[in-house]
């Protein structure tokens, strides 16, 4: 294969076993200061039956080995810091490092959630300012910063709706969810005690408003809508949708996963949304960290405010801030303590960096998505043609003819030095290629991406086997997921041999470059 790849070159990476395989009794990586009180007899204090002599098979290694171990593992990851990460609906934007710095400041990171509130005014001011900023951005009236993640934000939002409807006399039975929605939406509705009714999208990928009108009855508590939808398209009839729901006493919930397309341009509170969550790890740049932690604040209209989870941030006389847990109508706590404070600090730092200029970030995100769309249209099939906002969804219909599917293209993209786009989603597009570049990519990086995608399309036409067997340049090749699920191995055991227990017969040692590029 002679394709020229401009973005990436292979380099050697270190091999590394499991930390347990490096362990040897007597090695240490951590020493405590000497004990300044008399040592006690643990047996006597705890009772011999409660006591053990340390955790068996816990690692025993030195400091340099720990640092090298994790540094080596880190080099096996792709990351935003290395390049474009165009995962649709994930908003993998730059994570500013000053945010990390301020979240670790003495006086913020060190604070205990139960310390007296008069000694927490700094923390509470951070919360207050973030609340105000997020309300301005969403156009809503009240907010809770407590939920630990988007999915928990969804749950909080539905519980607010439930509590409000209960107070009106009937919690109702059903939540409507479009078939384009993320899987958390229906899973959340069930945890909130609702039945799920799916609504099919119409031919442009928008909510079928006529169908919706038929479905909305006095039994429907809410519609959960993602806007822009997971196709990256703005729900143009959303004010009408809100009216249909409100006419029957049902509420409009908006999944704010795609707020990166709207910030500074339009506000959900203005176009009829009653309650919504925000993913601070998407739009507001807190790092994904390999899968969390997230944060999912929930913003709402005034009439839902009494139901907010406790504690609620309140302002007392003289501007003193306090946390109030004594709220009769509250849905209760959704997690312990006030919220993921360390992440709220980062999100506020992000907002302060932009100020009103955050609109430029949104514009750039939308420019990038449309630029990629324009330059790949025709090369890849575009199933829904309405204008794209922050992301564009293609399908693999053209490449499918040669037996190449979206997953193959995604895996081949890895060889070109990019993280794949989102493949398995949205469900309404078979063979979806869901691409969200975010505002963090330069024109140069977008051009490299376009160049890579075009090259892969050509390969798919001329040499499909090459694409189907990708990636060729990674430490490991495609992994046996079926085998992993059939006989799950979910932890290391002392009886394990180094380098795993499986298929030793045809094990190929690292590194084993397959020169295809």
């Amino acid at each position, binding site marked *: 294969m002679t394709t020229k790849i401009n973005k990436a070159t292979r380099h050697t990476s270190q091999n590394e076993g499991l930390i347990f395989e490096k362990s040897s009794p007597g090695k240490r990586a951590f020493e405590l200061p000497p004990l300044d009180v008399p040592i006690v007899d643990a047996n006597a204090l705890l009772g011999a039956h409660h006591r053990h002599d340390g955790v068996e098979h816990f690692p025993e290694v030195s400091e340099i080995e720990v640092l090298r171990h994790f540094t080596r*593992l880190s080099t096996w990851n792709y990351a935003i810091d290395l390049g474009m990460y165009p995962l649709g609906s994930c908003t993998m934007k730059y994570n500013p490092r000053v945010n990390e710095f301020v979240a670790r400041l003495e006086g913020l990171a060190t604070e205990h959630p139960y310390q007296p509130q008069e000694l927490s005014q700094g923390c509470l001011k951070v919360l207050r300012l973030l609340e105000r900023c997020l309300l301005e951005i969403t156009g809503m009236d009240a907010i809770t910063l407590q939920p630990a993640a988007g999915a928990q934000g969804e749950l909080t939002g539905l519980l607010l709706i439930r509590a409000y409807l209960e107070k009106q006399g009937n919690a109702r039975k059903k939540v409507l969810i479009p078939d384009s929605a993320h899987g958390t939406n229906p899973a959340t509705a069930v945890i909130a005690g609702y039945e799920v009714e799916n609504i099919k999208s119409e031919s442009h990928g928008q909510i079928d408003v006529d169908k919706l009108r038929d479905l909305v009855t006095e039994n429907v508590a809410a519609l959960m809508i993602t806007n822009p939808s997971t196709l990256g398209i703005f729900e143009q009839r959303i004010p009408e949708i809100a009216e249909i729901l409100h006419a029957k006493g049902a509420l409009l919930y908006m999944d704010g996963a795609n707020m990166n397309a709207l910030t500074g341009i339009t506000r959900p509170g203005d176009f009829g949304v009653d309650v919504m969550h925000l993913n601070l790890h998407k739009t507001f740049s807190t790092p994904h960290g390999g899968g969390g932690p997230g944060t999912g604040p929930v913003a709402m209209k005034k009439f839902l405010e009494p139901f907010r989870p406790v504690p609620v941030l309140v302002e007392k006389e003289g501007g003193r801030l306090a946390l109030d847990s004594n709220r009769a109508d509250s849905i209760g706590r959704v997690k312990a303590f006030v919220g993921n404070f360390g992440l709220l600090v980062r999100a506020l730092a992000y907002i302060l960096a932009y100020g009103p200029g955050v609109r430029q970030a949104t514009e750039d995100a939308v420019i990038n998505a449309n630029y990629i769309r324009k330059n790949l249209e025709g090369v890849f099939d575009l199933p829904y043609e309405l204008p794209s906002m922050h992301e564009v969804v293609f399908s693999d219909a053209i490449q499918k003819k040669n037996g190449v599917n979206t997953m193959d293209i995604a895996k081949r993209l890895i060889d070109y030095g990019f993280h794949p786009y989102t493949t398995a989603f949205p469900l309404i597009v078979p063979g979806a290629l869901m691409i969200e570049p975010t505002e963090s990519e330069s024109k140069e990086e977008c051009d490299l991406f376009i160049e890579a995608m075009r090259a892969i399309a050509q390969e798919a036409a001329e040499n499909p086997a090459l694409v189907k067997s990708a990636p060729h340049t990674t430490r490991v090749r495609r992994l046996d997921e079926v085998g992993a699920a059939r006989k799950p191995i979910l932890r290391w055991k002392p009886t394990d041999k180094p380098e795993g227990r499986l298929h030793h017969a045809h094990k190929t040692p690292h590194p084993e470059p397959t020169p295809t590029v």
Partner: protein
Amino acid sequence: MRYLPKSPTERQEMLESIGAASAEELFSSIPERYRLTEPLKLPGPLSEAEIIQYFKERAAENSSGYASFLGAGVYNHLRSVITDVVIQRGEFLTSYTPYQAEITQGTLQAIFEFQTLMCQLTGQEVANASMYDGSTATTEAVLMAERLTGRRRVLVARSLHPEYRDVLRTYGRNCGSLLEELPYAKDGTLDVAALTRSLRGDVAAVVVQSPNFFGVIEETAELARLVKNSGALLVVAITEGVSLGLVKPPAEADIVAMEGQSFGLAPSYGGPFVGVIASRDKFVRQLPGRLAGETTDTEGRRGFVLTLATREQHIRREKATSNICTNQALCALAATVHLTLLGKEGLREMAQQNLSKAAFALGELEKIPAVRRAFAGPFFNEFTVELPRSVKLVNAQLLEEKIIGPFVLGTAYPELTKHALVCVTETTTRAQIEKLAVALRRILERPL
């Protein structure tokens, strides 16, 4: 703006390529009357230096300079700089959930190591990639027990962290759980007689915390025997993981739910932390959340993938075991690095120091005539003392001495307004303990 990598010329070129006259045109699908015509009223823009200045000013308005005896679910422990060095590596910090296994083996192997460490610590056979925190892990453990038993009644110790009980109630109310509380006995442990009375054939789970919210270590092995006879499952919550350096893990429990904040995570005013859920192999299909598993690639090399995803919301939608989507990957990584640094000896020694200092602190406080140890049960690094007057009032006076006093149990237990939950870790110095004792003696000697 420094985060945006486009020059005005490049923007223009891109717009021309798209065929749009302006960026505004790209938003034409939004009905015009909903498009903002004014900039948002947000503070900023701030330079990096101004951002640091703003947060330093806020930090200065908090509790710096005070000695603290607070624990109650959030603990101050030593943390190595190595942990922060590792988790700030961009390859971990700015990576997504490892769905594309070929280029996320680092995160996946670290999760696999985390799962192993959590099994070793808790004495269980399987642990997931982490939950939001201890409170939601406990709640998910209860929901899991309900699915496994097909029952709805859940007996919850009153000595479970009050905020964990709150979260259980929030979820339970809508999931149909029937929650009942079990009292504590005189020695601070679960009231076994009350448990026996309530334990009938319709109980899904019994939930206890150990060391419990009063600091007392529960007889989990004995409780497991009792619970097992009724066909219910025993859920043990742990808020102070360092205890496991010395205290036998609740291996007999069916599900363990733990807060892992003590493993290298800063208190950070309440989060982000890391929840742990661990159980038995046979229950794995009902476990919520992500799991990393070992497998091989097409050439037979060891590798790791996210596995058993058919339990999860992105595949099963409304039939999923939970709506949880993320884990706390970076916090779990911090815990993994921290525990690897500590190792077997380090964790044991840290636990020994906690126990020794807590014992010393109790001794010092008991020398004050009016102070009494409230519960006789064994404790680890927290214990409850009864004062002759309201802890709230005493704490207000301690503040004048630059001491943040112990947790006021009366805020969650109306019958315990004179009871204080004192926490002492390896970071508390002897001098601080002695200062507390002196101050407390002086305060209690003063008339009310």
